[in-house]
């Protein structure tokens, strides 16, 4: 579980995060959504400590990460897997070596066991054939998937993905969402995803945080979002006619279920 308490961050006189508090639970896919430039990446980097927040606290399982010394931070980080917006693959290594790297650095076991684990992860993201290619030789979407394989190879407790499916075709994108969801449930991972992909929101958003101009504007589940009254959120999520239609269909579907009120914790 990750808890954020009043995170603030500015660059120069530009206040990017103006006090964000939230709780992200284990075994759930937590989404941070918001317009481009609303501070999603900055928030994620504050959570993992790549950017130091000006004020506020980040708690990992009730341990104050922000107040830790380097050594303790390192040990928390070894439980973190992260996919960067630009994939951040090591370009001097092949795909296989990229995924192997965390295992080489921290893993135990023989070369054969490590190799088996690497191929297993590459298989999960459908990339077994590209194992010997270099990052420069594969497409952007493939890089993303290698990034995911590298992030999960050590069985992390916390998984951070910055836009895992931007630039992917809808099918691969769904595959990635499904994979992340499966992993989250299977290993009880606390997963945090930055996205503006509506499919992700609807298909796998257990807990959604909507950011607007550096503040948390709305938060709830993907069923609650269907009934959300927040105007900014609605303008952002259901931006097209197509999506508005889809929303109404989904609403009707939910109404058909007699117990829908109980399922939604807090219908607005």
């Amino acid at each position: 579980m990750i808890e954020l308490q009043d995170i603030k961050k500015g660059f120069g006189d530009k206040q990017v995060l103006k006090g964000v508090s939230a709780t992200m639970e284990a075994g759930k896919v937590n989404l941070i959504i918001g317009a481009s430039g609303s501070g999603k990446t900055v928030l994620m980097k504050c959570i993992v400590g790549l950017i130091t927040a000006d004020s506020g606290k980040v708690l990992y399982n009730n341990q104050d990460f922000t107040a830790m010394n380097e050594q303790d931070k390192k040990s928390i980080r070894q439980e973190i897997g992260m996919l960067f917006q630009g994939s951040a693959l090591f370009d001097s290594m092949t795909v296989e070596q990229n995924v192997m790297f965390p295992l080489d650095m921290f893993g135990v076991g023989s070369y054969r066991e490590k190799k088996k684990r690497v191929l297993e992860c590459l298989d999960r993201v459908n990339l077994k054939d590209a194992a010997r290619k270099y990052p420069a030789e594969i497409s952007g979407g493939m890089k993303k998937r290698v990034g995911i394989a590298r992030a999960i190879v050590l069985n992390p407790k916390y998984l951070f993905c910055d836009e895992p499916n931007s630039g992917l075709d809808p099918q691969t994108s769904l595959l990635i969402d499904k994979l992340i969801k499966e992993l989250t449930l299977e290993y009880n991972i606390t997963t945090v995803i930055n996205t503006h992909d509506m499919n992700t929101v609807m298909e796998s958003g257990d807990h959604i945080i909507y950011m607007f101009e550096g503040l948390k504007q709305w938060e709830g589940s993907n069923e609650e979002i269907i009934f959300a009254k927040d105007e900014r959120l609605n303008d952002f999520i259901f931006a097209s006619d197509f999506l508005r239609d889809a929303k109404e269909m989904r609403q009707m579907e939910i109404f058909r279920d007699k117990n829908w009120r109980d399922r939604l914790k807090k219908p607005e």
Partner: protein
Amino acid sequence: MEFRFFYHFGSYLLMLKGMFSKPENPRMYWKQLMQQSVDIGIGSLGIVFIISLFMGGVTTLQTAYQLVSPIIPKATIAQIVRDTIILEFAPTLTSIVLAGVVGSKIASELGNMRISEQIDALEIMGINTKGYLVLPKILGALLMIPCLVVIAGFLGIWGGKVAGVMAGIISNDEFMKGLRQELRIYNIFFALSKSYTFAFIISSVSAYYGYNVKGGALEIGKASTTAVVVSCVLILFADYALSAILL
């Protein structure tokens, strides 16, 4: 300007301090050190060959041109060539060239890793990136650059001999005789001290500028230019300081 100097110097020292922590996996650090040594050492052999041969040749020709008096024996030319190359040309000139070759490579490699978030990715895994990326580069340079300087010294003197004999200035035997005259071992110690100092300057300054790149691809180019310029200036400054102290 002054404040920026102190800012850079301070964060440079902090970077150096940050390099020292327990390696997460010593084997990987060792691998990285070997890799960097090969990159720096083998990668610069070609250019060191070329410059030292020509440097030696030119030194012989110009020394002979200046020593016109018939009283001075020919062998003295060889002696002067030897000392000039050992004292100044092999360590300093080679290091200036290496500042361009190795320095820009280190700065742009780290700069690229910074911009493409590879450094962040390592950091997230719980790796001390200063220790894993910067330290092996500095150690690699400290291992290899003095070797390159020694090679440059030998090749320079040999190049000087070949040029002298080819131009008919001095005979092979006279040159060899001159080489053996009054050789001071202290000079070699001085040359090696210089090469270690310069190796440290080149690698650490370039790593500092590369590691701290901010912005986009354009900044990588700027950082590597700055790294080379600052390294060169510091090399010349250190050259002067070491000469004043040690000679």
